[in-house]
């Protein structure tokens, strides 16, 4: 017997069809801007490809051996890791403190929560340029204020202090965001736990150690994973605040890619892009592993 090709489809099939119709715009946009260019990046990374100097040809892993010996790439990898690692740790520590402040019952709590949105909502470029001015060696307010209390300081012209300044600004920018996320976690912890602990004579650090931190652990792991992965790709802060300098001391990997791309070294830029993706995969993998562990517990 021949099956009728026009037989009505089942309800399940119809629902699946509707689901994919609804998903189509989102999936199409994501594929067009991530998977497709990613596959192209892989292929560019093994080519000598500069539109100003044709021909384009396959060179195997030449771009990767070149970047392994490029002192700017080495410096930017180590600064990227320091920048992201140090920022994330302090964002979490300060974020937890601010989250407690935002959760405390006091009259200005609403105002405190509004204030904490401001750094998140500020354009990074405004923040970066504003702090560039404040850290300026001649006209800046920060060196001037420090001088008034007897500390001579040079910021953006000293490689190490420039690194410190960029990290500090990044902590300033994202700590309140982390705090708002952790606040939502704090609000989810039952008051009864703290009441019970108080009856048992627990100090505040006991509460922190045995109630708050364990209860927040899943959120802390997700948040730090998100902050690590997301900040690995930060470009605008060092770009606008220091231009990657002095020298290349504050150049992050993302800016190095931008520099090579602007010089039309498309093959080389793609190879560095692959390194950045590799670092993201390693960090994200560790994060996923930790997340699974804490979710099981």
């Amino acid at each position, binding site marked *: 017997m021949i099956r009728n090709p026009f037989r009505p489809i089942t309800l399940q099939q119809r629902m699946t069809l509707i689901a994919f119709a609804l998903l189509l*715009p989102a*999936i199409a946009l994501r594929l067009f801007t991530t998977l497709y260019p990613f596959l192209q990046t892989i292929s560019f990374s093994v080519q000598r490809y500069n539109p100003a100097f044709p021909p384009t040809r396959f060179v195997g892993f030449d771009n990767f051996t070149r970047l392994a010996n490029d002192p700017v790439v080495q410096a930017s990898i180590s600064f990227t890791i320091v920048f992201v690692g140090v920022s994330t740790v302090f964002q979490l520590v300060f974020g937890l403190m601010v989250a407690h402040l935002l959760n405390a019952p006091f009259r200005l709590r609403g105002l405190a929560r509004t204030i904490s949105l401001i750094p998140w*909502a500020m354009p990074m470029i405004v923040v970066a*340029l504003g702090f560039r001015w404040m850290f300026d060696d001649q006209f800046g*307010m920060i060196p001037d204020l420090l001088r008034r209390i007897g500390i001579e300081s040079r910021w953006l012209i000293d490689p190490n202090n420039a690194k410190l300044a960029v990290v500090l600004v990044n902590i300033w920018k994202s700590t309140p965001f982390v705090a708002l996320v952790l606040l939502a976690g704090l609000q989810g912890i039952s008051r009864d736990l703290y009441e019970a602990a108080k009856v048992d004579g627990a100090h505040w650090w006991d509460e922190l150690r045995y109630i708050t931190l364990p209860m927040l652990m899943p959120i802390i792991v997700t948040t730090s994973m998100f902050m690590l992965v997301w900040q690995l790709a930060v470009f605008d802060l060092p770009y606008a605040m220091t231009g990657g300098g002095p020298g290349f001391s504050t150049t992050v990997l993302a800016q190095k*890619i*931008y520099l090579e791309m602007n010089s039309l070294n498309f093959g080389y830029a*793609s190879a560095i*892009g*692959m390194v950045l993706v590799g670092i993201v995969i390693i960090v994200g993998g560790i994060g996923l592993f930790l997340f699974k562990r804490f979710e099981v517990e």
Partner: protein
Amino acid sequence: MSTTLTRPQPVAIAESRSQWWTRHGLKLLTYGGFAIFALIIALPFYFIFVSSITPQNELFRIPPQYFPSTPTLDNFTRMSESVPLGLYFRNALIFAVGSSAISVIAAGMAAYALARISFRGSNLVYIGLILSVALPQIAVLVPMFQTFQAFRLVNTHHGLIIMMSSLMLPFTILTLVSFIKQVPGEIEEAATIDGANTVQILARIVIPLIRPALFTMFLINFIISWNELLYPLVFAQRAETKPLSVGLMELTADASTYTRPWDLMSAMSVFMIVPVLLIILFGQRLIISGLARGAVK
């Protein structure tokens, strides 16, 4: 003299002191913490704002001035003359409204399919969409730029909107899925039994129910795209499409501090901050809940 008589006194003092601390110490700590927090957040804005109303000849002075002797709006006038401010403002508005509208619409459709329709591969699609956010936008910029040239999308508003809305999709989907799952599905089931089709259910029941969440994500995505620098920097190379963030970066083009027009830059920074501040003041409660929901769930 027996020790039993003298002992109670110091204990009593210690107890009253600790009682004083439990009554007032926490309050002191909270308000003190709030003051420090507010000061650290506010200081950069104070300096940016004050610079914008300081006359140019007072701005480059050593030591810096903390308040202008003759506040003026002159910087704003000159800034609007040296940059096509109206055009850049219009472009920023088109970019931000377009990107947030497209991302919210596409994410809303996708989130409904993922939260309400059970079909094979639903989980895989969801995880794929969320994980795709980890791919650094700059790592695939080289092929993206070429694709844009091939499709004639460079220097177009819709090209920029495609990139930006796609970037914001994963987080928007994550948040909306968690919101839709909280809304009970019985009304939709009842409507299905009454013979309503998917379009009717979406238009009459689902959209009205999740309107607050859609509006929240629109506000959040508006702020994110208003602030975006990288995509416009690469894909908007002509004045007809450049938004404010790129315009601000253009002002800094001069290499040295002496010639860097901080008077104009601070004025433009204030101009760029004001819309964002208004959105925060107006929608802070929604935005905080929206930001936290994505991370907690």
